[in-house]
């Protein structure tokens, strides 16, 4: 079992809510290399030989297991690009807990680009949790640019739960999903930016198979001088249903831009987009004031619950 330093332990607590343990199927990437990893009877993790990253094989026998693949960057000035591919066999049921935390105490930028591809078999059910977090007293930026590509076979279910907690100076997130017949996609994206941070999220959902459905919920809070851009796009190529809902709370001198795109290419494609940007609702603040909470405490509670 690898020994982990205090910074790594602390960052892992932030990005792996269930508690990272070197048990079961896991891979901890630390400052650009795989520090430790483990397999189980049904889940095998292999290091790539042609480039940085891992291949994760999840057998159809997998029922309710978890895979933990956190990334910790604590060296200032590092640029880490990693390719992780997941092969999920027909009928597997698995939860994949990923996440990246950067502790930058230096003056150089630290950056992690995680390119994840999921090949989801028929009837498989995957839950993918990803938390991004930055900390450290250095002036160097903390940069995370994740790319998530998901190929969903018939009747598969994929739940994508992404959270950017705080401390990430710049992020450019790209998500691409291709859906076959009767597959179901659930996306919950939560994002908080502060200071002068910027976040861009592009999401392309192609509903190719009849009966496919997607529900995308994006919630964000932009404070200080931060800047967010959302560009969710749903393309309906068959009888399908998609619902995209983007809600943002804007504060201070922040800027939030939501650019929805819904593209129906089939007469039975039903696609809905809702987007709302606004300051914290004064009625909500007053309601919490009537519970005896100050303005500041009420505001914190509203944001905490909004990002839940």
């Amino acid at each position: 079992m690898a020994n982990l330093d205090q910074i790594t332990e602390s960052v892992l607590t932030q990005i792996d809510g269930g508690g990272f343990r070197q048990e079961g199927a896991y891979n901890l990437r630390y400052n650009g290399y795989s520090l430790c990893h483990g397999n189980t009877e049904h889940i095998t993790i292999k290091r790539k030989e042609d480039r940085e990253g891992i291949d994760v094989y999840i057998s159809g026998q997998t029922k309710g297991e978890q895979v933990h693949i956190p990334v910790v960057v604590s060296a200032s000035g590092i640029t880490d690009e990693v390719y992780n591919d997941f092969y999920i066999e027909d009928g597997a049921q698995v939860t994949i807990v990923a996440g990246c935390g950067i502790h930058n105490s230096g003056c150089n930028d630290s950056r992690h680009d995680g390119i994840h591809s999921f090949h989801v078999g028929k009837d498989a059910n995957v839950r993918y949790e990803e938390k991004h977090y930055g900390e450290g007293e250095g002036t160097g930026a903390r940069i995370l640019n994740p790319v998530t590509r998901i190929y969903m076979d018939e009747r598969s279910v994929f739940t994508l739960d992404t959270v950017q907690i705080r401390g990430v100076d710049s992020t450019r997130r790209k998500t691409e999903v291709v859906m076959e017949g009767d597959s179901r996609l659930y996306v919950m994206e939560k994002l908080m930016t502060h200071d002068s941070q910027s976040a861009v999220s592009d999401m392309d959902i192609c509903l190719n198979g009849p009966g496919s459905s997607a529900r995308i919920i994006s919630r964000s809070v932009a404070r200080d001088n931060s800047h967010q851009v959302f560009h969710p796009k749903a393309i309906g190529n068959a009888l399908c249903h998609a619902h995209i809902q983007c809600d943002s709370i804007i504060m201070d001198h922040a800027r939030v831009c939501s650019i929805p795109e819904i593209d129906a290419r089939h007469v039975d494609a039903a696609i809905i987009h809702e987007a709302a940007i606004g300051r914290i609702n004064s009625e909500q603040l007053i309601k919490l004031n009537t519970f005896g909470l100050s303005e500041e405490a009420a505001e914190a509670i509203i944001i905490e619950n909004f990002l839940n």
Partner: protein
Amino acid sequence: MLEVRNLVFHPLENGLEISIIENISFTVEQGEMLVITGPNGGGKSTVARLLMGIETPDSGEILLDGVDITGWSIAQRANAGIGFAFQQPPRFKGMTVKRLLSIAAGCELPESRCCDYLSAVGLCAREYLDREVDNTLSGGEMKRLEIATVLARPHKLCIFDEPEAGIDLWSFSMLVDQFRRLHAEKKQSLILISHQEKIIQMADRIMVIRDGRVAALGPGDEVLPQLLGGEKDCGCTANSPCRA
């Protein structure tokens, strides 16, 4: 317990001063139930909002247990023991019913306690605890939850602004029972703004507010017959158009 003296509220609307509340005075005694009624637009809800500190009066005084709270913030009044149930409660995306009740109570509530508060307003705890207080809840569910949040902490004075609005008949009779129980306990004073005869009948005293003024104030058995007898008379004249 509560003393309101010469309350006046003249806010600006499109740059012009308008008269909403004109010199209203009344008291509420310990354990008393005062029902405020009167035509729509007469100023009932504004009085409630002035008492809670949501609006600021232009003049007048509000005293709670002899202490002048006129300049106090909403939170200060809440911490002094005033509770408030909104006519149209706000929704909170991402917040669960259980969390809202816990915030209302000021501490993390066990499920059994949440269940008690929700049952008291006719909601089944098992179905609602983990639901979000967002637009998936109907208007009636929101109203009942709103009342549950007020029940979740002890108060000296509870103000309910049209608690019956949007509530179905079955839940309404439960709600009336709940108010009857609260009133019988005499632990807290109650101000209810209502148009419902069943609620008005429970009042120790009734105050009728019309055109921002107290049109009648007295024991329930004196004011109620006047209300019932004059229900066809909305009180409007050529010089004072109907605001109902």
